């Protein structure tokens, strides 16, 4: 049954009455010429779960994240969200899906340098056609929630690395996506700031009920998640729940 969203929720405008859904990878394979990046990868990510994907360089974890999020189309197999195929969608439809139902956090934020923080955060809503004032109001609320009240008009260059990454998190969740993909979200940060960012990222996605898929090299970052999928030589090498004591 679809959860009810409060009347002010942007979800009502973006994806009316959309239930939270499971993201599933089924027998995914992907090659770049002779190089095999993914081979027969299968798993499900239930709604609301935080999953870390780890593996050595070149293991295929980045390709996996791109296939799951609809950036790349697998050579074989299928990615689905709530039972509906993602990988068979056309390029434009996949772009629309990413814009409306997924959120992204990148390694070094990738905020637009000429926009103030509030406009960077509001961008996904503006792209959906939500009026500017309403989008900025929601952006300011998110920035406040993430401890950036008073910094709404600062530009990315006027923020520290951790603050910029919090802006990126606000941008990733403002449109209440079903899945947030984070690609090495702490890669450009020191350890303490990295922990702060992971705490905010996991707490924010948990409170909004979104699933979280984090690609990382760092064990410490992976411990913030509930589940660890390890990729080696293009295949799932290990898939385990992370116990609370370990976390």
């Amino acid at each position, binding site marked *: 049954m679809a959860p009810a969203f409060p009347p002010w929720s942007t979800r009502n405008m973006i994806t009316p009455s959309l239930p939270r859904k499971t993201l599933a990878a089924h027998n995914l394979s992907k090659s770049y010429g002779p190089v095999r990046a993914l081979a027969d990868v299968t798993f499900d990510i239930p709604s609301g779960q935080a999953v870390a994907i780890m593996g050595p*360089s070149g293991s295929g974890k980045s390709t996996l994240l791109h296939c799951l999020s609809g950036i790349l189309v697998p050579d074989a197999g299928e990615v689905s969200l709530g039972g509906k195929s993602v990988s068979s969608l056309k390029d434009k439809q996949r*772009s629309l899906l990413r814009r409306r139902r997924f959120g992204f956090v990148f*390694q070094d934020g*990738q905020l637009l*340098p000429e926009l103030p923080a509030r406009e960077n955060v509001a961008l996904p809503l*503006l*792209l959906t056609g939500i009026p500017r004032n309403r989008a900025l109001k929601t952006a300011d609320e998110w920035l406040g929630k993430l401890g950036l009240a008073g910094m709404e008009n600062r530009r*990315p260059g*006027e923020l520290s690395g951790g603050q910029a990454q919090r802006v990126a998190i606000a941008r990733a969740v403002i449109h209440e996506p079903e899945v947030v993909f984070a690609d090495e979200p702490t*890669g450009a940060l020191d350890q303490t700031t990295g922990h702060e960012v992971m705490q905010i990222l996991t707490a924010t996605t948990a409170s909004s009920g979104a699933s979280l898929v984090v690609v990382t090299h760092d064990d410490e970052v992976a411990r913030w998640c509930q589940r660890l999928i390890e990729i080696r030589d293009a295949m799932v090498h290990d898939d385990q729940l992370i116990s609370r004591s370990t976390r």
Partner: protein
Amino acid sequence: MSVAVSLAPRLAIERIRATKGAGVLDAMAVLAFTVSSWLALTVAGGTWMFFQRWQVEGALPSSQQSGLAVTYVALAGFACALLVIPILGLGGGAARLGARGRVRRLASLRLIGMTSGEVVQISVIETIVQSVAGALVGSAIFVLSLPLWQLMSFQMRPIGIAELLLPWWLWLTVIGALIVLAMASTVFGLRRVTISPLGVARDQTPRRLKRWRLLVVVALVIAFLVYAQFTDIASFIGLGTTIGFLAVVIGSINLVGPWLMQLFARPGARTGNVARLLAARRILDDPRGAWRNVASLAFLGFIAGFVVTMPTTTGDSGPNTFFVQDIQTGVAITLAVGLILAATATLMTQASQVFDRAPESIALDRMGVPATIHLAVRRRLVVVPLAVALGTSVPLGLVLSTVAAVQLESFPVVGVSLLAGTVILGFLLSLGAAEACRPLQAGVLRVQRRRND
């Protein structure tokens, strides 16, 4: 032979040959040098033609025309002076193409033990290779385009191919000057790049430009209009001081230009339309830079607006009538050259931005932002500064000429049509240049890699 001297030409040639990825920028630098050499030689050829007609006795059909011959040389020299700025801008821009990529590459060379002097040497040698290649192609285009000029006439005499051909020493001077200036731009540009990569947004909120800029220009225009009412423009001193005053008014456009960019871009920064918002924010980020790209066009637009209303029919068909017609034709040619330079500069700037902004574009693409947004932003970044520059300078020129200098008897249909046609063609060229970056953008978005994987 130093390492830099032996390494640089090979690096430059290999990158020009590699037409993939950022290698396109090196090919584009050659294109920019080609266009600037071609147009510089053309403008120099025209001036040389007037100089020859002045010097050679009996070259002109009447004594009245011979008396005006030196004025033609002076006006052609003035047109050269006006075009020097955009030509230098193009050369300088070519030298700074792909600022981020260049800095990264040079930083790698520093890491493997090259001194900063050697790194600068490498860049300068690369520029020499690119500019010499461009100069050769540009010279060939100049020679091939000569027959087309026969369709036009000045001083009641058609242009002859031989008249435009430059003597070897003048050709060498023009090309040599372009290469030396490109080298200087490289050294200067590289210094600026190391401080803050050009074409890349500043990190901090820029300061707003103040309204006093507009007030100064308005005061100057009013002063000029009042002055013109009480001055006898027919006298030699009157004409001289009017031209001098007009030059000050034209120069003051540079003061108000960046402020106008800011003024016209600001409403865009308060919109919910993402393409309009991004374009406006980028202009507001550096209004002086946006103005710099079109400043020379604004001057040309002002002059074109000023001369277009001059009467071409005085009842007789004497040399004075043809003098005015020749001025109008000369201004139209100068404006056309300026617009071609602007379109080439647009192509270069926008192509460079595609690569400099690649990480942000890829991030936006992954977030699901449609690729059409990039194109829409680029179009606005091209059209808004052009429209502001020409939309303010041409009417200002028209107003000043009709109010202060020229008694308009009938609407100058031919002049205005020629001006409008040139401006529209220039707009289309610049828009075409922006469109030409579409495959580059698509290529950048196809590259889906993560830096540390």
